[in-house]
């Protein structure tokens, strides 16, 4: 039996108090939840750092901080291209929207690649989740890899989402609202890095 969905008609519904699509609302709620998750991990890092008498501050300007600055630049730029993608999708310029999404996706992948190189560099120096080559608190490696690892997971997830979105926008499977929802997530990943970079890198500069 075919039953028609009653609630598709705006006149028969109460208006959403925020006037945004449900998908967007859910993404905002997810961002709120995810922000709390990052706060918890950063709190754990701060708690252990404050409680530790021999915390290591290993980062020198070249290569670690410089690399981090370039990564920050790349991620911030990807925020800009994401903005352009959302604007293009809103204006109905699907081809341009797709191009900007791919640009964002590539920048995100570049960020992830640079981050993994940074990881490799640190692992080669002897840093592990449970090991500090400088002989200080072992929590440095644990905090560094788990905080940046959590962020890296979000970036990789975002890169995959951006690729799917770029393909779907082109084929018509996704619309401008889906691009906007992806944008909310991507800007959040961007914003979190603005906390991770100073707290993990700059505060641990030599």
């Amino acid at each position, binding site marked *: 039996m075919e039953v028609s*969905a*009653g609630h598709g008609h*705006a006149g028969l519904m*109460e208006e*959403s108090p925020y006037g945004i699509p449900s998908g967007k609302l*859910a993404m905002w*709620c997810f961002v709120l939840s995810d922000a709390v998750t990052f706060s918890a991990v950063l709190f754990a890092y701060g708690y252990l750092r404050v409680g530790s008498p021999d915390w290591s501050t290993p980062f020198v300007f070249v290569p670690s901080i410089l690399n981090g600055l370039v990564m920050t630049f790349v991620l911030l730029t990807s925020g800009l291209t994401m903005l352009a993608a959302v604007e293009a999708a809103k204006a109905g310029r699907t081809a341009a929207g797709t191009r900007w999404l791919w640009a964002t996706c590539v920048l995100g992948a570049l960020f992830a690649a640079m981050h993994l190189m940074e990881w490799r560099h640190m692992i080669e120096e002897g840093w*592990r989740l449970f090991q500090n080559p400088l002989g200080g608190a072992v*929590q440095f490696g644990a905090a560094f890899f788990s905080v940046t690892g959590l962020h890296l997971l979000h970036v990789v997830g975002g890169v995959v989402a951006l690729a799917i979105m770029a393909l779907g926008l082109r084929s018509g499977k996704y619309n401008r609202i889906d691009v906007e929802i992806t944008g909310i997530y991507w800007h959040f990943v961007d914003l979190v890095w603005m906390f991770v970079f100073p707290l993990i890198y700059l505060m641990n500069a030599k």
Partner: protein
Amino acid sequence: MSEATAHAAGHQHTAPTGFMRKYIFSVDHKVIGLQYYGLGLVAVLIGMVLSWLMRLHLGWSTLAIPGLEKLSPAGAPGNVMTPEYYLSLMTMHGTIMVFFVLTNAPFSGFGNYFLPIQVGAADMAFPRMNMMSFWVTLTSFLVLMAAFFVPGGPPLSGWTAYAPLSAVGQAAGPGQGLGQSLWGLSIAIFCVGQLLGSLNFIATTLDLRTKGMSLARLPFSTWAWFITSVIGLMAFAVLLPACILLILDRTAGTSFFIPAGLVINDQLQPHAGGSPLLWQHLFWFFGHPEVYIAILPAIGIVSHILPAFMRKPLLGPRVLVGCIASIGFLSYMVWGHHMFVSGMNPFSAILFSVPTLVITIPATIATLLWIGSVYGARIRFTTASLFCLGFVSVFISGGISGFFLAQPSIDTYLHATYFVVAHFHFVMGVAAIFAIFAGTYFWMPKMVGRMMNETLGKIHFWLTFVGVYCIFMPMHYLGLAGNVRRYAAFTDDFLAPLIPVHQFITIAALVTGAAQLIFVFNLIWSRFRGPKASDNPWEATSLEWSTATPPPFDNFGGKQLVVHQEAYLYGVEGASADYIMQTSPETVKTS
């Protein structure tokens, strides 16, 4: 925002026909609600049997329990449980009850079934994500159950999994190996399921309300589910990374929660620099809001059901919603009251004590609103209304001991005694369970189309009501007498005289537990043999009573309801009946 709603309604509303799509992998929120409820029922039966085993051991510590050795040869040689196995059963009892009963049934179970109907929607905002949330939760349950069958058995560290006991691994005892890892994994998965569920609840409440269903007209139950979702969104978000860090400590060699120089079983642990208190902070930042995740839906359900049987609205409906919201808000500021004796700075105890006492204000206002509303009402004494009144009773009994425990100086003595056990079982456990019972007797006719037996229901209520007081009231006395919790036996000199009290509690627990079989029988028997339920058997006003019994696949048979009234118009003078349904356009002149 036509586009907004069109997007929200972007799923098909064609009833599926195959058995799998209809009952197993269903996207229908009603089936998912029943699945959550069923999972809760299975979990509560397991949890209850575990509590029987524990109680038997506490009363008669040398008693052989037939068959126990089969379940765990190492944990119960000769059918007598070891102290370690007692702790395993306690851990599983707590974890099962808190996560899979008190969170699942009143919030995810009833919430899934009735939240969309009460707002007048055809389904949740994201039906497929809704289905996923149940299957994630079921996976989490199965992972936890697997701990019974792995070498070493279930973990020993309690539902709070305090580090370093939970973090160091096998060296800390049987069950601290694979069993504890499964615990961490299970809870991490559970957090994901709750996150998905919460997103759905929030979006549905805000975006899918039918014409006329303003926020002020939402039933209390919907308000409570909505506020609980917001709490859950942030609380489980902390438990998830905490569990992952715990698993890292256990498997990847990190030392987040393990201090230096820890010697266990004469072995120096290869960890340094971590903080056991960090786990407590992270856990209780989740754990205290979790208490309200269990009790706020219960408050909402009871406030929803009571007016239907008092035949008059609750006093101060907006005040009550304000109370629920402020309890939710304050729940994030009090986690440290679980840590008064943890070694945390004693000055910060004051910081956590004050907001804890402040929480009692909205809780007390809500209680006074219920009592004030009941006063002078001509109550229809059905089983559902009895359980609502029982809820108010146990909520008060459990709440009063909270005043004591909220004060650091008193808690220093009472911490980790049976006084605390009595407190949280009354106010969180029994109160929420009573609300689940009230909800079951009230809503089951709508859910399965048949009335439950009232005589059996009333016998069930009175046995349970008297039973829980016999179980938990003496525990206050035990706690004041210095009886610490989490001991497997009390053969020690100063606790030995208290053993008869424990034996009394054990007998009470067995009888009360057996009384629950009446409920299970009633549930199953009524499902097939109960008299057919009409569309509105309780003469109630909210939207779930405006549709067929049981509701069709899209809830309202293709109709889009229009809401004209607030939620609880009972005992209206000058109306055509003594109540006005939310969908009725009837207007009555008020003088």
